[in-house]
């Protein structure tokens, strides 16, 4: 330990060069740019939501609804459909549910958009109880074996897809949706003349 060396350093005044200062300032600027780059990145989840299905016809989706009726996505042509993968055990699904209720109520009268639920890894009685508790009257199909989830490339609930009136997937969202966001997507889609 060269205590003596450090003492010397204090006594002898350092040469009037500012190498360290300029190096630090340069580094600081580079790092600032780096932080700016990081700050403007979208989340990988959003990017991931750019699914290969986008712009393609939605995979076929048929099944038996909770009330026993036949439900199919094809039968909903002409409407904007939010295909929502959900489960009663999934907390974000529970959180987003009121938003879906709001969205479906807003469009009920006009009949221009609707929600179609797909049960993801859950039982029908559980989901029925979930809907009894939290409301919502849209069709919900069970997905035995997760075939539909596989077709849509769903990793875990909640995930939602927006399908346009011609049956093409225009958007995929991972995580919770909200009614205003969905409305915006539908409005944008209509403006594009889909």
């Amino acid at each position, binding site marked *: *330990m060269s205590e003596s060396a450090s003492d010397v350093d204090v006594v002898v005044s350092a*040469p009037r*060069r500012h190498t360290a*200062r300029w190096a630090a300032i340069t580094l600081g600027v580079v790092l600032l740019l780096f932080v700016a780059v990081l700050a403007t990145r979208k989340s990988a989840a959003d990017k991931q939501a750019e699914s290969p299905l986008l712009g393609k016809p939605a995979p076929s989706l048929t099944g038996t609804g909770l009330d026993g009726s036949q439900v199919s996505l094809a039968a909903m042509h002409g409407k904007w459909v939010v295909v929502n993968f959900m489960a009663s*055990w999934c907390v974000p699904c529970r959180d987003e549910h009121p938003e879906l209720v709001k969205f479906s109520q807003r469009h009920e009268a006009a009949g221009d958009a609707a929600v179609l639920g797909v049960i993801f890894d859950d039982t029908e009685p559980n989901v029925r109880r979930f809907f009894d508790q939290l409301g919502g009257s849209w069709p919900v199909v069970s997905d035995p074996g997760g075939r539909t989830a596989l077709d849509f490339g769903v990793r875990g609930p909640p995930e939602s897809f927006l399908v346009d009136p011609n049956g093409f997937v225009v958007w995929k969202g*991972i995580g919770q949706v909200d009614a205003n966001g969905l409305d915006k997507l539908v409005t944008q889609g209509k403006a594009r003349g889909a």
Partner: protein
Amino acid sequence: MSAILGTAGVWLGLMGALIGAVTLGLGLRRRDDSLLLAGRKYTWVIVAGAVLGVVAMESALLRHDFSLKYVAENGSRQTPLLFTITGMWSALEGSILLWALVLSGYLAVMVRHFRKRATDPLVGWATLTVFVVAAFFFALMAGPANPFRVIHGAIPTNGPGPNPLLQNHPLVAFHPPMLYLGYVGFTIPFAFAVAALVTGRLGEGWLVETRRWTLFAWGFLTIGIILGAWWSYEVLGWGGYWAWDPVENASFIPWLTATAYLHSVMVQERRGMLRIWNLSLLLATFSLTILGTFLTRSGVLDSVHSFTESPIGPWILTFFGLVVFTAVGLIAWRGDRLRSPGSIDSPVSREGAFLANNLLFAAFCFVVLLGTVFPLLAEAVNGDRLSVGGPYFNRMTTPIVIALLFLMAIAPVLPWRKASEEVLRKRLFWPAATATLVVVLCVATGLRGLSPLVVFWLGTFAAGSAVRQLVLSARRQGWRGLMGRANGGMIVHIGVVLIAVAFAASHAYGHSREFRLSPGQSAHLSGHTVTYLGSDTVKASNKTSVQARVRVDGGKVYGPAIQQFPFATQAIGSPSVKSGLHDDVYITLAAAPDQTGGSAVIGVIVQPLIIWLWIGGAVIALGTVLAAWPGRRRRPTAPVSAPVEVETKPEPVGAPL
């Protein structure tokens, strides 16, 4: 109840940290010792807050209190006890809580350790810095990453349990806490570096205070990284243990800068050189832990470890910006007062080797950091979306590792100041001869391939140098000759060599194949025989698995399985491994039989020397403990240049990796 207790703990910690920081700040400004003495007492408020939070969280997990959102998302009634407890660090919010606990623990030890110097402004500033860091993490929990958020509306009756990968192996109980002990531990040296710059007390005093703290944090981080590799080997089922995944890199990058520091600090102690560099390494290490946290927790990068999406990204990035701003600003302000009086006399000297070592570690760090963030930079520049994978990292880091191994072989025998050719020849003869003999034997037994053989040669060479130092030291001092920084460092070197050799061997000489086997059928790979006996379905409380029975080499029966956890989409393969000193037979069930008694696809991976990775890790841990052991006090005025005669004493310094 847990929510109230936990929230109280979080706010207690936050308030303690803030008020403590303000008190210390005032005390430092007014040079008022009574305020400094009062300020440090808030440490215990912070500790109480963190402990309260952790107790509340664990009790909620154990009581399956699903009114807490965190428990509803990460707990379930079927999850075994161990994984219910580890559920606290199975997702973001809980792991921040663990972070806060570890940080407050370090803080408590630090404040106690420096209790007699509580009025020293250096200690005051360091404590203040840790308070500010603690305040940030408690603020995260009070705001965007609140672990004690409650569910509004109906309370679920059960939850999905932790991520399936996090309830598959007991190592999950050890790997994250170890990693956090390492990661968070760098806060203390960072705080002292900041304090040294602020107070302008830039002599070597602060170094001595922080060296051992850095060593401990480094040791824990090393163990954490190796346990992580082991965990991924035992759990993930692809036979590998390191994949250059962003999260692995995030833990490895600060490790590199910390390792560089542990070496270069010796140059400063002995020769008073590299002062700005050493401070910068400590500042960088801490900044990189925060950057790593951002990269892995904000969801900007895809990773197998991204267990949660979270809104805390902007917070951590802001904090990173603040840390970097502080660090760069302090260096810019004080840096030019740090100019060292000496310069390096000869490149062929201990300090020359340390300098080369540091350049290599800096390059290593840059290469890994660049590869990790490159996808983000590329996307920002031209919108391309690409990923950087193993080939880039392997190609770029192999030459650096080889150069480091070479330094590791020669640096420990180099004297300070200047080495003569004769000294070198004499000291390096036996290690080099042994290494050459080993490689000749390897080639004679049929091993081929340039890079593994180079690694074997350099590895044996480096181990030879280390053993030589240890033997000389032990001959003179008996068992005490194995302790202290220099000798502990040599033991760490041996551990690193074991890992490098095992890494090279397993990469170069591994074999992997899949076989479709009917019950009773056997397959052969690399001298091992694998016999498929049949499969069973096993139901446990938290999972259902199809387990194959596979006999290896006519001996024990192993049970690779495919496990299905409720509430999880993908089934998880769980490998079964026959470990040996010579090689590992790694068996996976790649496809379960379609019907009972049908054929199954069995994956077999044979890799040599895998177990030496873990043994190497244990050796490093042992070496670190020995290096941290308080040895004989050297007089600070001990001569710094090498004596002229050879073989007098071991250089009381470790050497580059």
